[in-house]
């Protein structure tokens, strides 16, 4: 029993929790931004897969790591543009359009990957992001080796969460996004363009999702394989609800979730013989569902979420 608690105090657990959390932070912030503007983006799973593939492929073809991340973000933005064309401009069902994007983006990534990299015994690898210890801070006890010895993408994710909280709550752009998500007719009456705001939010949010995917192949692992996203996108959609649509809580939620995931990975190595490993792997998904049930009672959903806005049509 003391083993179970001892694990909690190892730096390994906390630093791997941050590693697991990073793609979730990117994608959860992306989904959150879309939803605050009133658009559910179920393309997330496919966009993450495409980001993971194209970012890796760019680096595999000789680009440097940051170019890979940027390529992934641009492709994510392109899929975001497609989703906003369907769900915002045409006002189609956000559920079906999003699922269509996921099916399209993930199958396209497998297709392009297979074209570029023919089947081999072991998948080819790239040289991934290395941890970059922050000078001085990384020497601090406990938080030094965990918080300040990560890859640059993790620092970027943390900064992004704070930036998004600031932008959404303290700037005119943030206010415009929030009004659009609550009541696009009111936004229009204020002289804002709800359609343009929604498109902007979905495009930016999708770029973030793709960056989360790119983290998987360029920092967490060093190769791409189909189905590697493993439902992380759907977990992020659940995390947005858990976070009650607030960036700060999204950051905490992602880290909490990742901590739990890292913990079960360690339990698996300690108790793997006695308990089937599948039960451990199920835990993150079960946890997401439980979080949804617990939080959805208190949740303050953006009121215009999933409601298409067409000019001149009554809401």
């Amino acid at each position, binding site marked *: 029993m003391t083993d179970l608690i001892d694990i909690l105090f190892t730096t390994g657990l906390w630093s791997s929790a941050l590693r697991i959390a990073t793609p979730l932070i990117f994608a959860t912030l992306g989904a959150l931004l879309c939803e605050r503007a009133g658009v559910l983006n179920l393309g997330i799973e496919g966009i993450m897969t495409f980001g993971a593939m194209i970012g890796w492929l760019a680096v595999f073809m000789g680009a440097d790591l940051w170019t890979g991340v940027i390529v992934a973000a641009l492709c994510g933005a392109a899929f975001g543009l497609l989703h906003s064309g369907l769900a915002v401009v045409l006002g189609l069902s956000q559920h*079906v*359009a999003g699922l269509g994007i996921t099916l399209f983006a993930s*199958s396209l990534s*497998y*297709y392009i990957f297979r074209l570029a990299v023919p089947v081999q015994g072991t998948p080819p690898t790239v040289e991934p992001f290395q941890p970059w210890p922050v000078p001085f801070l990384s020497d601090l006890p406990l938080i030094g080796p965990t918080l300040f010895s990560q890859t640059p993408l993790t620092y970027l994710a943390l900064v992004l969460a704070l930036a998004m909280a600031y932008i959404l709550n303290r700037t005119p752009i943030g206010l415009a996004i929030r009004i659009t998500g609550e009541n696009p007719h009111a936004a229009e009456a204020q002289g804002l363009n709800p359609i343009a705001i929604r498109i902007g939010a979905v495009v930016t949010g999708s770029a973030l999702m793709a960056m989360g995917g790119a983290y998987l192949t360029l920092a967490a692992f060093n190769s791409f394989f189909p189905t590697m996203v493993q*439902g992380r996108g759907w977990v992020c959609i*659940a995390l947005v609800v858990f976070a009650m649509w607030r960036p700060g809580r999204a950051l905490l939620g992602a880290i909490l979730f990742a901590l739990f995931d890292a913990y079960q990975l360690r339990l698996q190595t300690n108790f793997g013989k006695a308990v089937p490993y*599948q039960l451990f792997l199920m835990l993150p998904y079960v946890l997401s569902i439980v979080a949804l049930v617990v939080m959805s009672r208190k949740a303050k959903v953006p009121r215009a979420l999933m409601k298409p806005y067409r000019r001149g049509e009554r809401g």
Partner: protein
Amino acid sequence: MRFERREHPVAAITIGAPVLAVTVSLLLAGGLIALAGAPVLAAYASIFTSAFGSKLALTETLTRAIPLMFTGLAAAVAFRAKVWNIGAEGQLYMGALAVAATGLWITAPPVVTIPVLIMVGALAGMVLLIIPVFMRVRFGVDEVVTTLLLNFIVLLFVSLAIEGFLRDPLAFGWPQSVPIPDEGRLPKLVDRSRLHLGLVIAVGFAVMVYLIQRFTVFGLQSRAAGESPTGAAFAGVPITRTLLGVACLSGGLAGVAGAVEAMGVKGFVSTDLSPGFGYSGIVVAMLANLNPIGVIFAALFVAAVFVGADGMSRSMEVPTFIADVTVSLALLTMLIALFFAAYRVRW
């Protein structure tokens, strides 16, 4: 530019939409085939002959269409009532697993065993969908995310079962379930092919769903609950009961998909029983414009693309994923076509 809702959807576009979607998606897929450096027209021809060109090809396409008809129906009845069941994949596996487990202790002639096993499969799928739909009506939890997450949980549970309590000890350590007894195997429709009785059952279910939606109170109520929940509630439709009923029908259909696939094709359950039949079912339902009879034809199209692309990629250097890309493009095109059937553009 703005969009204006038409008084009546244009029938020509609504009917033509699937044709348009199929054509456009095949054209776009042609671009991707060209990208792979293969001759496009020859590739099309190869897809066509691989799907329909011989007796074997045709029976393979029909065999592949069977689970797609069930999952397509599952999505169609759910979406009609705006119950977003994206969990057909999980319900399918639950159905198959329940069949394998029941097969362990059932000893009866096929006339009894086959219907019992199909019912068991349906029941398992139902239970799996009732949970998220109940959570939606009771706690307001969006069922899209919960059904999606349940897919992953179920697949892990299947893996656990076939490596544990349902493991086939005679499979040389290969993770697969105990075999389904011979009395529970579906008879073949065509000799020396994989085509089985499931095709007849699937078409029968499609007609049954059509009749339910068209002629029963439940059918009307489920459509009303989807189109306007508040209006329907005001008109006295019991929303909760209707949605749970839809969950039973939709989950049951997806469960039967797994039962029939296990009883007709494989004879056991493994984690590669379904290459995403649950997700492709969504495309089938949308291509059919949620019409149960249309599902039969949409399933045939999707099955033909998969079987055809498999054959084509064996002879040419084109990754077999071209099938998934084509099918998802058909879904997106269909959505756009249906929009322009209902709206006109005003400049």
